[in-house]
């Protein structure tokens, strides 16, 4: 099976011929929640979603990987701390660090897993207000040269949902300075810092730009009728998050933007 339908068989989506060959893996851990949503985003962007299981010992034939949100293993210890040791994670870490530089996107719990895996620096602690917070969040795309942001303009502001309990990004000053200097702060919160993150950082990348992690959820802003504008009537768009998935697809197929 290549997709994760709600119930029964996956629905057929007419993939864009140029992109349909691209295969993007979506990882499921016990406690993962947004895997169906991430797979839907991949399909809506025109590619094929491939279901990956945390216990798999081979990564298989995928061109990129999304580690979706949720509470892997309940996050009772420290968010992402156990998932990081899953057999599949060591394969993902190797592939991300290899010469092929597999594109990897970590969303929310996925971001936490990437920092626990040391693919990205820093860590997330509990929100400064100590509550779970779900809101439509404005972000500025600070770096449009990563594998996952090619389809955005630098400085572009997008609105996508944010929803977490442990979203406060922290790192030591030296690391934060280095991230800034190397252009690795990919997203910054605009207007309101929802969790106390250092320097309003919402998402970062590794040096090569193939690994990106962020707390907000682009996969919840990919479909008209089901995004921030439709749910909350705040104006703007329902589909500001789709660019993440089209970016990586365009990179995979080597096409022009």
């Amino acid at each position: 099976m290549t997709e994760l339908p709600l119930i029964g068989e996956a629905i057929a989506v007419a993939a864009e011929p140029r992109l349909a060959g691209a295969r993007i893996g979506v990882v499921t851990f016990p406690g993962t929640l947004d895997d169906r949503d991430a797979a839907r985003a991949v399909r809506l962007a025109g590619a094929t979603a491939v279901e990956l299981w945390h216990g798999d010992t081979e990564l298989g034939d995928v061109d990129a990987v999304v580690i979706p949100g949720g509470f892997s293993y309940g996050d009772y210890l420290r968010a992402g701390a156990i998932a990081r040791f899953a057999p599949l994670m060591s394969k993902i870490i190797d592939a991300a660090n290899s010469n092929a530089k597999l594109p990897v996107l970590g969303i929310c719990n996925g971001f936490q897993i990437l920092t626990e895996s040391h693919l990205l620096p820093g860590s997330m602690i509990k929100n400064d207000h100590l509550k779970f917070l779900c809101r439509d969040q404005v972000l500025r795309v600070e770096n449009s040269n990563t594998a996952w942001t090619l389809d955005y303009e630098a400085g572009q502001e997008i609105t996508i949902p944010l929803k977490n309990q442990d979203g406060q990004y922290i790192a030591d000053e030296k690391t934060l300075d280095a991230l800034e200097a190397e252009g690795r702060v990919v997203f910054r919160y605009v207007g309101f810092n929802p969790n106390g993150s250092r320097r309003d950082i919402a998402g970062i990348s590794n040096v090569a730009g193939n690994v990106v992690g962020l707390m907000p959820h682009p996969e919840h802003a990919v479909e008209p009728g089901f995004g921030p504008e439709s749910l909350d009537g705040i104006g703007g768009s329902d589909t500001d998050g789709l660019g993440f998935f089209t970016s990586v697809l365009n990179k995979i197929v080597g096409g022009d933007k």
Partner: protein
Amino acid sequence: MTTETTKKFNIDTVENAAKTPDTELPWAELGLKQNEFDEIVKVLGRRPTGAELAMYSVMWSEHCSYKSSKNHLRQFGQKVTEEMKKDMLVGIGENAGVTNLGDGWAVTFKIESHNSPSFVEPYQGAATGIGGIVRDIISMGARPVAVMDPLRFGAIDHPDTARVMHGAVAGIGGYGNSLGLPNIGGEMVFDSVYQGNPLVNALAVGVMRHEDIRLANASGKGNKVVLFGARTGGDGIGGASVLASESFDDTKPSKRPAVQVGDPFAEKVLIECCLELFKGSLVEGIQDLGAAGISCATSELASNGDGGMQVELTSVLLRDPTLTPGEILMSESQERMMAVVTPENVEAFEAVMEKWAVEYSWLGEVTDTGRLIITWEGDVIVDVDPRTVAHDGPVYDRPFARPEWQDSVQADTFTGSVQDAARPAASAELAAAVTELVASPNMCSKSWITNQYDRYVGGNTSMAFPDDAGVVRVDEETGLGVALATDANGRYTYLDPYHGAQLALAEAYRNVATAGAIPMAVSDCLNFGSPEDPDVMWQLAEAIRGLSDACMVLGIPVTGGNVSLYNQTGTTPIHPSPVVAVLGKLDDVARRTPSGWREDGQAIYLLGTTDAEPGRFGMGQHARPPGRAATEGGP
């Protein structure tokens, strides 16, 4: 471990019970009345064993047996036309009713209460309320797709309200958010009548293909009975500790937590694991474990089936190895399910458990004896007709009468009241009144609560709070979806239970209709005081009569629900609070109508007639206490 454990117990076998008819049993401490205990002895033809007494006492409780409300609830099944039944695939009596959505899709939903645990321990009480209702939905064979939570707390400025409210909201968020279920709406009402007895109700909705509908029954001789999910611990077995004669071990904890503790991760894994079982058609019958735990699951599965069941209780995996047989039978540990599996499917069943790392143990099998037999290391400790435990419990025709004070509260109308005299007239006064009204705790924005819940997960939420109804897409290809709303008005129901309950239904019905959906089914959570108080019993009887009459008029059936009684502090009951949920269908959720005005320049129309409502629902002293804003939405 088993052998060592069993040494501590003085096992009261059926054989022993027959030989020792005069043994004193703590039936009163377990909540049974003399006539009920006598009935158990009559049914069995001997005194019950300790384990049997434990089972009967929990299954014959008000909570499990509906003994005070059953006679009245029948109206929901009687006042139904053929037309109303046409889309009902499963009616009242199963874990949750099932309604046909067309295109091979079915939807199941149910609302339940978790009131008293949420007062004792707000976080866990509310959390396990969500967990319990979600398991009801899974056990129908459905994938849960959304939750809602109607909440009622004491006065907002009372010092204890913050404890209860913040705890309950955090519990609903902490558990619900971890399951990947969008929270699409609910209610939040502050009123001092709920100070010592908050109402924490939870609704869950799930969808399935018609062929995936599962029922709770154990049929087919030789089929295996399995318990899976979390281990069994000492949760919620306060009452069982009086069966102390079972235990020789006086070092074990004497105090048990009265409130169950939830593990949302275990529940999430259980959801996915059950759906994989359904997909592979690996279970014949399935039942979640909630109130009354294994007592309920074994007796209901066996009672609904075509034979009997034999279970070895020492096979139950325990979190606390000191539990006695009675305690194991009564434990309300969360995140557990019981299923019936054919011998051919045992291997495939075990493979699914291994994949999701869910613990399981085979307890026994379905028999053709018509008896539920439970053994402890082979010794029979329970030998009963399962129907007598699960379905043929006591039923009471409780006396009820219209309270003497009812006339005076109804006569106390707005016209001629202090508030009437102080009615704003000038535009500045009107503006101030409007500002006061919209800023009042019950009218103001609830986003500070709903922003603690995930409304996006699943990617199918089309509408959520603060819209009047929540809307979720069911079929990604066609856009087929469902709308849900819950409503109640305790003050109106206090003034007139018959019409107050109808107004709650009408409001939920309108909220679903204005979302653009066709209302199809009703689930209700009837929160009332003590049925032993004739005033309260009258409120309950009138509310049920009103609801069932209104359902006939609107042409939609009640498919399930829950009755929560004894909601009172001392002898003071809460306002009668029937919380009514209505489910509707949208052929395409793209056509749903949100409640807010989103574009400039649109015309505004008010439909219906507005009048001063001088009668029962005037904003008199009881609808609007002095010095307090009218805080609940109008009819």
